[in-house]
């Protein structure tokens, strides 16, 4: 059964304090791993798609990496506006494209 586990559940950082969020996955043939950001009361906002182990993608203060078992979302020198819940999801072979999500990591960045 395809499964995604994210850790930690919650993370509090001071502004400028870099850290990483973890996403461990089990999937029968990975087609893609997705990172989304979700603000309270809003739908998930797309950040990155990673397709194969060793791949990395960057956007502003965020960098996503992928191995055969997990993905990391690295946040460098975060700002208060980076506070949100970060969701990881996978799409596997044999699916119709539906995403399997983790529970998310709630990030709070204090000034």
């Amino acid at each position, binding site marked *: 059964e395809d499964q995604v586990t994210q850790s930690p559940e919650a993370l509090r950082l001071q502004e400028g304090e870099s850290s990483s969020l973890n996403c461990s996955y089990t999937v029968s043939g990975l087609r893609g791993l997705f990172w989304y950001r979700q603000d309270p009361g809003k739908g998930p906002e797309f950040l990155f798609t990673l397709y194969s182990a060793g791949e990395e993608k960057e956007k502003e203060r965020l960098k996503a990496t992928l191995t055969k078992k997990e993905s990391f979302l690295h946040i460098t020198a975060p700002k208060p506006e980076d506070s949100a819940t970060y969701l990881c999801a996978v799409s596997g072979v044999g699916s119709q*494209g539906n995403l399997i999500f983790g529970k998310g990591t709630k990030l709070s960045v204090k000034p």
Partner: protein
Amino acid sequence: GAGVSQSPRYKVAKRGQDVALRCDPISGHVSLFWYQQALGQGPEFLTYFQNEAQLDKSGLPSDRFFAERPEGSVSTLKIQRTQQEDSAVYLCASSLNPSQATDTQYFGPGTRLTVL
């Protein structure tokens, strides 16, 4: 351009009532997905449409849940005889291509359903 829109944004229903939730996908997007998100959880897949065809409804939790997309654009998720456990945010997402499992899905703001 306009993103995915959903209406209503909030819905309060008494237990046993029927509700209908609407999704307007991004224009031209072939694929449309419905997800259910309980408080503090990640979204869970409900059903998938490619144009007007419902190709996967394996995530629908019971036969009280029904979805349609008759003209291949707007979709409606209907819940009959609502129960308290149906309280959740219902998210709609669309993507450009059919059955492209790595295609980016763009989400709407969701409809928060509260069943009293």
